[in-house]
């Protein structure tokens, strides 16, 4: 994940930016991580690990999303 995408993913998880994917699983994951972060603001690192794992596992699906997120 490049720096622009990384920063914007963090902002999405904190609720500072809005990004809706066409990928249901990614939307569900973002929603889940947002709730986790709301409950425990110190959990950003573990949330990002889960986001990274998703992106690494499905590069074909995540490629477009990452480009869109970086451009937000």
């Amino acid at each position, binding site marked *: 994940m490049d720096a622009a995408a990384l920063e914007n993913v963090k902002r999405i998880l904190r609720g500072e930016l809005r990004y*809706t994917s066409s*990928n*249901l*699983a990614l*939307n*569900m994951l973002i*929603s889940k991580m947002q709730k986790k972060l709301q409950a425990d603001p110190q959990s950003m690192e573990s949330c990002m690990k889960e986001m990274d*794992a998703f992106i690494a596992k499905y590069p*074909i*699906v995540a490629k477009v999303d990452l480009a869109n997120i970086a451009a937000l």
Partner: protein
Amino acid sequence: MLITLEETVELIRKGRLLHIAADDTLLRQLPKGKWIGGTTPYFISEEGGIFTKDRLFVNEIDYAEEAKIAAYGKYNIFQIVEECYDNGLTMLIMPFGSEVVAKYAKEAPEVEELLLHPTIGWVAGADLENGGEIKVYNGENGESYTDKAVVMYLKLPEGKNAMVNLVNIFTDDKTDPIIRFNDNELSATKCTVNGQEVNFAEYIEKKRIDVKMPLVADYNGSYINTSIKGVENGTVGFYAPVFRNVEYRFAAHVEDYVENFQKSIAAAGAKNPVFSCNCILNYLYGDLNGKKLPPFTGPITFGEVAYQLINQTLVYCEILG
């Protein structure tokens, strides 16, 4: 494709990998082979919505490198996360009203790594007027179950990914009150509406809410429905659980299901779905008998699985790459 018993038997004997939906009177006649199945007599075919106990809906799976079939009960259903292929698709069928459905419905959203493994499926049912057996089948060993889920794991070739998605004709009105529940439950007596605790059944009655409209929750832009099963003795029952810490609103009223489906299908942009299923409540409330929803065909089901159990939704899978 909706085909005859003889045609289905021929495909099984040829060794084809199949997902089959049909009335139990047909499923029980099938020989052993590489297939899983579940009961329903309702379908969306190429010719439109249809109720039939004379034909079977068969998906031939020609996009997988390998496949394996297993059955799980309520104590081990979440082994699917460990036993699936690293790059694959998990298809599961569960019998309506079984404990395994209840377990899956309540706990799936919290299961670690479930979202890393594309998981699609449906809940098997029966003829709503005349009843019938509700079962799922493991075609490999010929076993049928009323209390277990059958699962087919598909391994995809390198460079291919499965994408599970949904077509939901329902959306919310953000000016409507926010409803929250205290726990992950399949029924509720109390909830909060805009932060104020109320009796949910009384609230529905007082506001004259049409309970054919589901509760919808916004998961980062993907709307997930929970349908109302009924209101009895002051308790509201659901077809899928409501979850604590999730904000719900009742869906905005839908006048024309087919028109809404056509719009939502166009927006989803699916080109070549390899599997889809649609909810019995959409079939009934939307009068989908005889109506076509291209490019989607498949069983009409009693609960849909797109990672977690959802309601009143068309779910589908595409293979990308």
